């Protein structure tokens, strides 16, 4: 059996081994290599516990035997192979399953609370343990969410976005503002990093920027039936009008996000992703795809856009590149439209995607052929996914269930 010279290295100080080349069998696979590393670590310090490792050859995860990998990558077997090893990401553990009354259209979570929007025209606040804390009912149609701790935003098919103030001690919500101006269902909202503004995208092809600061004054609106409006204000909050409107998309805007405080990114059904200057409203860049974009996500860690579209692929884009229609990477494993995609907030290589084929997949960009894990808990279409900073993956779908998974990717960062 042929032997290969390999040098192992890691970023993780905890699992450091000597920087010398080892001769290992070429046919060895991940488990064999993991055993080797564990042996070495045991020899080094007695109190070592067995840890599963994953191995990266030239920045890509090793999934087959080392020999076949080196053959496909055209690595000479004569030289010393540099193999990086990281602690194996353990599978996300299912934690909670929260039942809703209707399809869950969106989910957003912070470290304490989970906010979900549902097709039963309500938004709900849940605690991390899955307890229903609050139900926000005000919309006449399907809901979307966006939370900013005590201030909540809900956007709806009834063309309005509502800004709620939630007092968590007293557990009361109050509608502060009703944002009117869209002429189609509002499909997406995003709050800017400074939390003073938010942007909404709608079926009417428009992007609108609104102020997210609650005030006591109502924006002026020319409405003939003023008295009725007053009466309504008690429930619906004060009417608010957009600060700015961006038009440029030829079809419905499906997803919008803030790249930073000055830059907006929107995906649309017209097969484009556009970058906007939030101050001037000018278009900065256009990425053209070949399919309708359902969702986008941006990771400030790796500065990449991930998009899910009405085909089976999750595509990664570089928003800064000038030739905007170049796909960096296609992650293909889903069988249906990709409806939701979300980068990990803590790991620059990982993202999670949900699809109409009922599966949520956890991806690592270093292993683009196959996802790290398939989370096949849903019984119907997955509509939304989210990923909190404390390692919780959430997914909601058309089976009325919100699943949460605990993911221990942070082990790596803790060690590093």
């Amino acid at each position: 059996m042929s032997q290969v010279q390999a040098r192992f290295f890691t970023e993780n100080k905890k699992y450091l081994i000597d920087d010398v080349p080892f001769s290992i069998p070429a046919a060895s696979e991940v488990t064999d290599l993991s055993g080797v590393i564990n042996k070495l670590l045991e020899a080094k310090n007695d109190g070592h516990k067995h840890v599963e490792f994953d191995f990266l050859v030239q920045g890509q995860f090793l999934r087959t035997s080392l020999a076949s990998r080196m053959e496909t990558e055209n690595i000479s077997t004569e030289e010393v192979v540099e193999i990086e090893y990281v602690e194996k990401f353990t599978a996300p553990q299912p934690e909670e399953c929260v039942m809703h009354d209707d399809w869950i259209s969106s989910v957003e979570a912070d470290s304490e609370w989970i906010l979900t929007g549902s097709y039963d025209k309500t938004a709900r606040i849940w605690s991390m343990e899955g307890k229903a804390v609050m139900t926000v009912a005000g919309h006449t149609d399907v809901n979307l969410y966006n939370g900013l701790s005590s201030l909540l935003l809900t956007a709806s098919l009834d063309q309005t976005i509502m800004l709620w103030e939630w007092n968590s001690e007293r557990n009361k919500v109050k509608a502060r503002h009703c944002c009117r101006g869209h002429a189609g269902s509002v499909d997406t909202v995003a709050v800017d990093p400074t939390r003073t503004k938010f942007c909404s995208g709608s079926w009417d092809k428009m992007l609108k920027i609104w102020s997210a600061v609650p005030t006591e004054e109502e924006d002026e609106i020319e409405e003939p039936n003023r008295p009725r409006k007053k009466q309504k204000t008690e429930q619906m909050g004060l009417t608010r009008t957009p600060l700015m409107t961006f038009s440029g998309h030829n079809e419905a805007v499906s997803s919008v996000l803030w790249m930073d405080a000055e830059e907006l990114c929107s995906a649309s059904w017209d097969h484009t992703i556009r970058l906007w200057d939030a101050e001037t409203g000018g278009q900065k860049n256009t990425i053209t795809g070949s399919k309708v974009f359902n969702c986008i996500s941006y990771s400030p860690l790796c500065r990449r856009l991930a998009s899910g579209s009405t085909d089976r692929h999750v595509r990664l884009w570089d928003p800064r590149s000038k030739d905007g229609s170049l796909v960096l990477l296609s992650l293909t494993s889903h069988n249906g439209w990709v409806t939701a995609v979300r980068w990990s907030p803590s790991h620059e290589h990982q993202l999670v995607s949900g699809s109409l084929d009922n599966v949520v997949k956890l991806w690592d960009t270093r292993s683009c052929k196959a996802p790290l894990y398939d989370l096949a808990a849903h019984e119907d279409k997955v509509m939304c996914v989210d990923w909190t900073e404390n390692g919780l993956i959430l997914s909601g779908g058309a089976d009325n269930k919100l699943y949460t998974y605990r993911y221990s990717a942070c082990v790596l960062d803790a060690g590093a």
Partner: protein
Amino acid sequence: IGYGRGVFIEITHRCRTRFKVALATSENFQLSAVTSVCARLSQTKKSLFSDQSSAWFISSPSCVMFLWRTVKWAVSLLVFITFSVRSQDIRNTVGNIPMEWYKDYPHIGYDLDGKKIFKPIRNKDELDEFLDKMENPDYWRTVQDKMTGADIRLSDEQVDLVHRLQQGKFGDVNFNEYEPAIDFFSNEVMIHPVTNRPQDKRSFIPSLIEKEKVGKLVHAIKMGWIKPRRPKETTPQYYDLWAKEDPNSILGRHKMHVPAPKMKLPGHQESYNPPPEYLLSEEERLAWEQQDPEDRKLSFLPQKFACLRAVPAYSRFIHERFERCLDLYLCPRQRKMRVNVNPEDLIPKLPKPKDLQPFPTTQSLVYRGHSSLVRSISVSPSGQWLVSGSDDCTVRFWEVSTARCLKTVEVGGAVKGVAWNPNPSICLVAVSYDDTVVLLNPGLGDRLVCTATDQLISSYEEPEEVMDQSVQWAVAEGEGHEQGHRLILKHPKAVRQVTWHGKGDYLACVMPDNGSSLQVVIHQVSKRRTQNPFRKNKGLVQCVSFHPIRPYFFVATQRYVRVYNLIKQELTKKLMANCKWISSMAIHPGGDNVICGSYDCRLAWFDLDLSTKPYKVLRHHKKALRSVAYHRHYPLFASGSDDGSVIVCHGMVYNDLLQNPLIVPVKVLKGHTITHDLGVLDVTFHPTQPWVFSSGADGTVRLFT
């Protein structure tokens, strides 16, 4: 004069003249001898010697021999001449000059002592000459010496020599010209060599030059510069004289010759002495005679004769020959030319479906909820909503992107047709069931548009004179209004299809009925008016459609599609579908092309500018077509059939009128299950994306992207 192995002889003209001059001063015989030599040389070997050319290279051995002898003789003669000149010719010393120069002088030259030599006194006149000639018997042998002017009488020897020379013989009597030849240089190897010279070394060592030459050749062969000669083909080559023969030429016709069929050889029956079983009995003979000549099995009666001598002349001989000639003449004998065509070449060259993207390829969403077959679907102009009408007496509104049923409206019967108003500023859906058409406001989409639509409907004012209409208009109230019903149109008969005009004000309804002229009605929603555009019944109407741009109205009956001009109120075109029963029809958004689906599995594409016959008929489905649809922007059309499949075709219509539409089937979409022998009932395209919706008898609507 030189000689060697090859003899080189040079005799110059000058030299020869000098001989003459020299000889002229010597004795006569010597002169004649030299003349004889020259004459002999020039006479015998004319090919070798000529007066002008002066050099020859002689290699032939016999020639060399002759020359050798001649030259030997000439040399001896020369030696002799020189000797005699030196000894005798001392009378005149002027040398070789023309003697005319001394014509006017009394002397003729100078002797050895320098004394003048005087000319002899010549006082003879003509008469004296004559007398001398007559009287002197030696006159004929007397010649004048030009050098001295004296008369010389030639001796007998000299005369003999002149005679010999005149005869072309050698001057010397003793010279034998026919001496036997000695072959000094023969090809035979002699015992004694001609020369005693030892053999050269180079004659017995291999030649270096040759070695070098051979080496060069070997190198050239090794390098491939010199190729070995091809072996001669031993098989004889024949030239095919008729290889390029034109089969239509006369010779070609011979090639195509079909020989005349041979006559059957005579058998035993024809024999003059047939075996008895071949002879006819009496009854057979009678029967034979009674038969018509055409029906007879045998054209003759077998007869028996005692001997060949007794056989009479064949009475029908001329007759039979004539018939044979007639047969040969009248029977066409021609070889049929078979055209060899590769069947692959007959298939038209179509672009690959891969190059015609985008088109729907996979099933993406299934809209489940209906409990019975879904007869009709329609997409909102914005592409966000989908409406479906089913036999379970409900109309459902769906969100396209999620397959979420947003609204279910119950109506009072199995829904036959739904149609979303194409005008984006109006939010209305026409639903037909039984004999009723309901205009629904689904309340989806822009809120302002919905309320504006409601206001538009409620703002209607009754006109003063109430027209007598076949259709009753009623405003929905109560629970129906809550559900979204706005206007209810009661028709006299069951309504099968509803379709909107592109502007969204006119609504056409089809009530198929074979016996009545009231089959199609056109409603104007804003004025709540109904009109029946046709007075006559032209057949069972299947479906109708408005032209997308111009005021034309398409009516499909069982076999024809009629195109009416609504302004002029006349029939403009009648399209022959070439099928038994049209089921559905769709108009290209450009307005110049129509597709018709029929129950006999065909889809006919009409180019209205081209012809009233189908430009192309596609038979891709295995069962009856139920629905056809065009995409509004993409060059796509789709057809749904009872075999449960939707076939998407690329149908590119060019602005160039000279270019025919390009039709390429690109995808068969399967997904619907066949229930009650029904598959896909309706297909429609998404207004902006290359997506196709299909509704089926299995109660589902499916989206293919």
